[in-house]
């Protein structure tokens, strides 16, 4: 997903200028809900949301990525049982003639893939960060010990929001 930030800049200049105009300094309001400690983001625009016991999690691409990619016409899902390190390819999406890798946010093992995306790839555009049965999540994974350590390198929701706002300038 690393290239997609640039795609966004080129494809939607109006969005970029809106950001540029509206945010000189992002004031942080008090949020009503606590920052979800179990949800983290990568610089390449993937997310992982852990279960309460931190043994499993759901992985997908962020709304920011889904917007930047444009209409996703195909999702290549990872195979069950696939073991990956952080940063390894965990499937791919195709949009606008581009086969773009989805990378594992942490070291993990694939337990299940979201087969809804095979039938209806546009689900990933509609609800990319939703990990319910009808959501656009990509894979359910088992978190290894190494994976727990990898989490520390990732951004929480607030940090990711700032990161993407900065990317649009």
């Amino acid at each position: 997903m690393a290239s997609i930030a640039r795609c966004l800049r080129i494809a939607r200049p109006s969005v970029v200028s809106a950001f540029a105009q509206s945010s000189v300094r992002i004031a942080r309001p008090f949020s009503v809900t606590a920052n979800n400690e179990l949800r983290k983001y990568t610089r390449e625009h993937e997310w992982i949301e852990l279960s309460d016991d931190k043994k499993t999690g759901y992985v997908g691409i962020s709304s920011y990525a889904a917007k930047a990619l444009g209409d996703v016409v195909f999702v290549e899902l990872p195979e069950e049982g696939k073991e990956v390190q952080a940063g390894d390819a965990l499937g791919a999406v195709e949009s606008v003639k581009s086969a773009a890798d989805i990378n594992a946010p942490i070291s993990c093992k694939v337990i299940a893939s979201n087969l809804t995306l095979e039938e209806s790839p546009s689900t990933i555009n509609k609800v990319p960060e939703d990990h319910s049965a009808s959501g656009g999540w990509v894979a359910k994974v088992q978190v290894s010990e190494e994976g727990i350590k990898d989490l520390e390198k990732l951004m929480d929701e607030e940090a990711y929001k700032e990161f993407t706002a900065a990317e649009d300038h």
Partner: protein
Amino acid sequence: MAALLLRSANGGIRCLTKGPAFITTTTTATSSSFGFGLLTKLRRSYSTTISQDLLNKKVQVYQSTSKDPYLNLSIEHHLLQHSHPDSYVLFLYINDPCVVIGRNQNPWLEVNLPALQEAEDIKLVRRRSGGGTVFHDHGNVNWSVICPPAVFDRDRHAEMVVRALKDLGVTTAKVNERHDIVIAGDGRGNGKDLFKVSGSAYKLTRLRSLHHGTCLLNSPRLKNIGKFLRSPGEPYIKARGVESVRSPIRNVDINTDEFTKGVVDEFLAMYQEQFGEDVKVERVGEEVKDMGNIRKGMDELTSIPWIYGQTPQFTFSSRPTEDDPRERPALDLDVQSDFNIEFTLRHGEVQTANVSGLKYEGPAMDEDLYDGMASQALAKGSDDESPLKLYEIQDWVTVLKSATAGQAFKVSDSSLNSISEWLNKVFPGNHFR
């Protein structure tokens, strides 16, 4: 044939002609210019590897000496995976005649496989980037640029190729909204209709962005390209994955050497000065075939599971269905009036099969029962355990016969033959013979 001589900014001489090119390139130009001087800078060593030193240079240019599409794509993939993350790489290659489908496409839907079988010398390739189906031959040059994700832009290097074309007299060349390169009329100001001369596709990894494209310069097969890209199975197939978008095409009518030089010049103009390096065009080809990664890449690209098995789920049905209500062409087969044959396939393997309306020979004709049994049998492969692999079918006659193997009934010969003949045309196994 009128020839125009142009002096380029660097003092080299370029030759343009209209129509088929008779240009003979010379190697006597000044060695410091980018134009013809490039020929004198070609590295003559034929190392059997692409050294990491080379892959770490800020600006790299490679030209393939091989026409093997599988090798060229494997070299390209090696460059994508092993060039330094901050580097800018240009790779140029020409392929033997082949049909190239995108990563997530369906060969039975996109390609005239029987025509490929008949032609015998045309290869079928599935590339790793997205997009649609194209035809390559010696009149087409493929250009590929690999760069850091931070500067990735779908049009940036297509515009680079447009500049090269304009420098060569193709004044109406431009990039359209689909990131294709089109020309108006003959590209020199005669005619207004737009023709596609180059298509683009992309592969985006975590560290690198690859943009590659074709350029139809002087393909002798232009009139036949359409035939290879129109599948006789298309009326019956409904596929997930990516479908091609058709465009009218034409040749640019430029010599491949001229075009190649022009693209290298424009690439160096973008990056060489910026990084202050003296870039040589590296020739790579057959000699790197046995490099570990390249060998691995070729093995994958030439394998049947890759070419055929990487096909997203699809259905084949001889009659309209709820999912695919299109009207089908009228069939003239020796079958009952309720004839229907339907398959669902994943990874090129049959998941479900349904036949009805076959003509049987045998005792106590319970045709519905026979149809049901034949349907079940059809879904299985020859070992009765794993599913029938479409890409392993040599002749549908064998498959249909085996659907009633061991039964007291069988499909009548004439019914069997007429259905097989039709299926071999619209739904053949693989194209290898």
